[in-house]
């Protein structure tokens, strides 16, 4: 039941924030802040409970209620370690989004927070639902607020970006719906039970070809969401044009839903097909890593640049997912979290710069370290995290993924390791262009204020903490990951 309350809390907060904005924008912000704080508290409470009782039943908390019994559709929510981790990330980034929008969003504050909260609710739903139909439902629901966030509060080219984002994700979603229906009917024909219940569908037996095609439907949807080359085209535009909070949520959470989809649905539902598909997927992953990195280097728009970093980093996730071992999978979980933090932080920095100098063109930047030393320090920190320096969480993630992948596929893992060099090149490029060198032109820019320091500081602490004590986080997801890998590898390959 508490899971439902999470959703209700977010939606309620959103509605309330919208309503009160008529009288006071600040009150609207405060309400959102309170809502997200409550959310994070609940999630932490759940996590603590989970940690105390890690073995035993698979789902820590669950909730089931009939929704459309005609088709065997249920309102079924459940959380395991993996979900809880994703919720933690969601709540954390949600809180930050409210904070970073405090000054940036001045127009239509109420509607902004309404969208923000519904976005979070949609994402929360995706991470929690245990019913395929419900999953698709939330999957689509989370797009609409984002569509508005980009199209209303975005930058100059927001209409194009919003449309592109909408079309890509909706199209892919519909393909996934086809696959969901396919598996629904196959299961129904086999057993006579027509249900969308995830756990019941898990054991569906199907012809290899059918399985493969259905799997492709899911995979393409998740590829697009994960922005794997060549399905990444929407991402740079959407990330660039979105307001900072939107970019943070896009990069930090929306992309992760793709990865989560792979882990939660593609692998367990289609173990055999996934094994067949692995070489292709891993190759795509490697291509993403390298091609994404190449594109990062070419960009002059700071946010676009950071967006391509996501493409590159998501390549690691795909690679790790299809490595089919615990190590890589834990790396993937780690990567999902740390990418959210590090790229989110870079977006926030880009947003703060944009807010201060009204441009995102790095050709018009330079020498900011001396102008805004605190921001410079933070930038160095997160750039180093981005390029996977040990001591930061990103290193753990990349190392685990590469190492895990290496156990399965040496060639691809080795090529993927070149991504480390590539990431060094582009990450340092940012520092060089923005923070090093002479000032492009003298301007007086305010350094980070307390609110911004709280945001950046908490991100920095987290990413360092995860780098030094990664098991705090990894342990939570271990049991889920082990169960998953056992299931996928039980086919004797």
């Amino acid at each position, binding site marked *: 039941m508490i899971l439902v309350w999470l959703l209700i809390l977010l939606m309620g907060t959103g509605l309330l924030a919208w309503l009160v904005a008529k009288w006071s924008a600040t009150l609207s912000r405060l309400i959102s802040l309170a809502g997200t704080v409550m959310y994070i508290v609940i999630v932490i409470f759940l996590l603590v409970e989970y940690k105390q009782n890690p073995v035993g039943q698979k789902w820590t908390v669950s909730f089931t209620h009939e929704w459309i019994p005609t088709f065997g559709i249920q309102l079924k929510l459940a959380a395991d370690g993996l979900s809880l981790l994703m919720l933690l990330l969601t709540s954390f980034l949600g809180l930050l989004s409210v904070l970073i929008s405090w000054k940036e969003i001045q127009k239509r504050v109420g509607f902004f927070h309404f969208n923000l909260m519904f976005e979070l609710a949609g994402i929360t739903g995706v991470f929690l639902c245990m019913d395929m139909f419900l999953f698709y439902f939330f999957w689509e629901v989370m797009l609409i607020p984002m569509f508005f966030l980009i199209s209303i509060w975005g930058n100059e080219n927001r209409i194009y970006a919003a449309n592109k984002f909408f079309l890509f994700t909706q199209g892919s979603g519909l393909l996934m719906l086809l696959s969901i229906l396919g598996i629904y009917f196959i299961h129904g024909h086999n057993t006579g039970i027509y249900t969308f219940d995830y756990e019941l569908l898990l054991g569906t037996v199907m012809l290899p070809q059918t399985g493969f095609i259905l799997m492709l439907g899911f995979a393409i949807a998740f590829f697009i969401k994960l922005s794997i080359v060549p399905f990444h085209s929407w991402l740079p535009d959407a990330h660039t044009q979105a307001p900072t909070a939107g970019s943070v949520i896009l990069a930090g959470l929306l992309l992760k839903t793709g990865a989560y989809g792979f882990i939660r649905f593609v692998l367990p539902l289609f173990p055999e097909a996934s094994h067949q598909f692995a070489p292709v997927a891993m190759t795509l992953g490697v291509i993403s890593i390298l091609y994404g990195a*190449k594109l990062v280097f070419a960009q002059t728009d700071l946010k676009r640049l950071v967006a391509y970093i996501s493409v590159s980093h998501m390549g690691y996730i795909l690679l790790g997912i299809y490595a089919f071992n615990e190590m890589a999978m834990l790396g993937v979980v780690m990567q999902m979290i740390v990418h959210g933090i590090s790229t989110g932080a870079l977006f926030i920095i880009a947003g703060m710069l944009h807010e201060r100098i009204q441009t995102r063109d790095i050709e018009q930047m330079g020498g900011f370290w001396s102008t805004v030393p605190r921001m410079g320090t933070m930038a160095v920190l997160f750039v180093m995290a981005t390029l996977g320096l040990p001591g930061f969480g990103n290193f753990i993630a990349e190392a685990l993924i*590469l190492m895990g992948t*290496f156990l399965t596929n040496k060639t691809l*893992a080795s090529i993927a390791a070149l991504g480390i060099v590539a990431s060094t090149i582009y990450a*340092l490029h940012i520092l060089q262009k923005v923070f090093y060198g002479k000032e492009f032109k003298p301007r007086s820019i305010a350094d980070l204020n307390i609110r911004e320091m709280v945001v950046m500081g908490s991100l920095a602490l987290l990413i360092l903490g995860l780098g030094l004590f990664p*098991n705090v986080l990894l342990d939570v997801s271990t049991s889920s990951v082990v169960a998953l890998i056992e299931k996928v590898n039980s086919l004797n390959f």
Partner: protein
Amino acid sequence: MKELLWLVVAFPFAGSLILMLIGKRLSRMACAFVGVGSILLAAVFTFIVGVGFLHNNPSSVPFNQSLWQWINVYGLTPNIAFHLDTVSLTFVFVITFVGALIHFYSAQFMWKDEGFTRFFVFMNLFVGLMLLLVLTDNLLVLYFGWEGVTLCSFLLIGFWYKDSANGYAAQKAFIVTRVGDTSMLIGLFILFMTFHTLNIQDILTAAPSTWLVSSGPAVLTAFLLLGGAIGKSAQLPLQTWLPDAMLAPSPVSALLHAATMVTAGVYLIARTHVLFELAPLVQSVMAMIGAATLLVAGLSALNQHDIKKVLAYSTISQIGYMFLALGVGAWSAAIFHFMTHAFFKALLFLGAGAIITVLGEEHNMFKMGGLRKKLPIVFWTYLIASSSLAALPFVTAGFYSKDKIIWMSYASDKGSLWLWLAALLGALLTALYTFRMVFLTFFGNSKTEPTHRPGAFITMPLVVLAVLSFAAGFIELPATMGHFTLLSDFIEKTLPAANTLHFSYATELLFQLISIATVIIGIFVAYKYYYNKPFPAAEPERNKLQAFLYNGWDFDLLYDFLFVKPLVFLSRIDKNDFIDLFYKGIESLMGALHKVLSATQNGKVRRYAMSIAIGTIITLTILLFL
């Protein structure tokens, strides 16, 4: 006492952290106090731990100390733990002591710099990470330190970030070493896959029984690890970053070249020697790389005019010696040379830094001259260090260490005449460029007047290091000169002794005489050409060969052509991602289709009727004829 080992590592980190968090609020003096003090404490505790380690421990049983488990994932369980044995103790000793001296020096050297606090944050971090690197018992943690020092070198090379050239140099250092690091990381993957652990001692124990000598994985792994070491230690072909790194403040160069960073490669190979012994091929490649590097760098050093560039190339060259030693299996010789090199190279950089500062940021040796009188302390210490670098016989530390390598390159079972010749030629070059530098800088006419005298904090470390450059050689004397083997005994408790072929006493003596003669000749030639000669202060005209050598054999051009240009080219032509064109194409296709279809909707009702009629005909055709 040795339980205090963790403090050795903790002090630098603590210093860095304190300065990072509250450095802004501290006075400059307090910052210096924290920054220097932390390293000084580390040095003191190294001493205490060293005593504790050696006390009642004749066979030097390694000491392990575990702090916490870093990661625990399916067999990958690296701890933040320390492994103290004779090799790491030697390294720790050098790092902390030389590091402490350099910090001492920096306190005055950087006093006026606006980034004083930041400087010590980075420097302390640098030392701390290097200590972590040498003390850890696990390759993954070693990689942590490995990358960490790369970061610090990046930050310190680009310390004066307002000049974008510094930034580019820093970037280059990071990227080039990262290439090597990646190779090493893949090596680690193979090790983990084979041994299911990255604990160094476990791997070293298990490797001989798992891998046959010269078997494929063994060679590959060793090769990949070598790649890492090459990158970090600036050996061919990844040496290009080091000369550019001279843009860093001089104490940084000193630290980078002497105690941290570049010697990490040597340490890695020494640490994982078993793996290299399993891959003799790689070892000989390593020896050849060392030999080639020392010649290439030596020739480049000879053509520099920037005093720090000379030193940079000399470092590359000297580390080439170390690699040569490692390649021929002379582990203790390599570490011996590492130690002596640390002393005299630190001294040289600090001296050079002092000179450059008092001459008002003048780097060009041809604009110096005649400083012998004006900066006596600097001169004498610099002379000692230079002699040591040039391996002036009998009185300098460098002589004993380098001599050992030269001899071993012939005498070891993996050695050969060619390696020996290369080493010998390198010795000649070293003597030549070293004394060219000395003569140009300190003798002849004064061309630039020093603005002030270096302060006490600057000269004091110089003196200490000079003593060490002079005295450190005597802990290890060749068989022909007393056969005193304190260091090699100490090291060989951890690392195996070199397999030398049996040569007669006379042969060894003969070879030593030849090398001594070479050095003398080198110094003489330098004297002949550079002592008290008038040189134009402007940069000399260079012929093509000289320019080639001056530019470090144009490796930069080569890499520029091979990697940078293609990348930039690709970025330029594909800035907007050609894949996007595909989707844009779909978009325009849809737009075009819309236009075409819209044109059919022309408002003429007869057209509409025709469409209905044609539709009917088609429907009927399908129904009847299909």
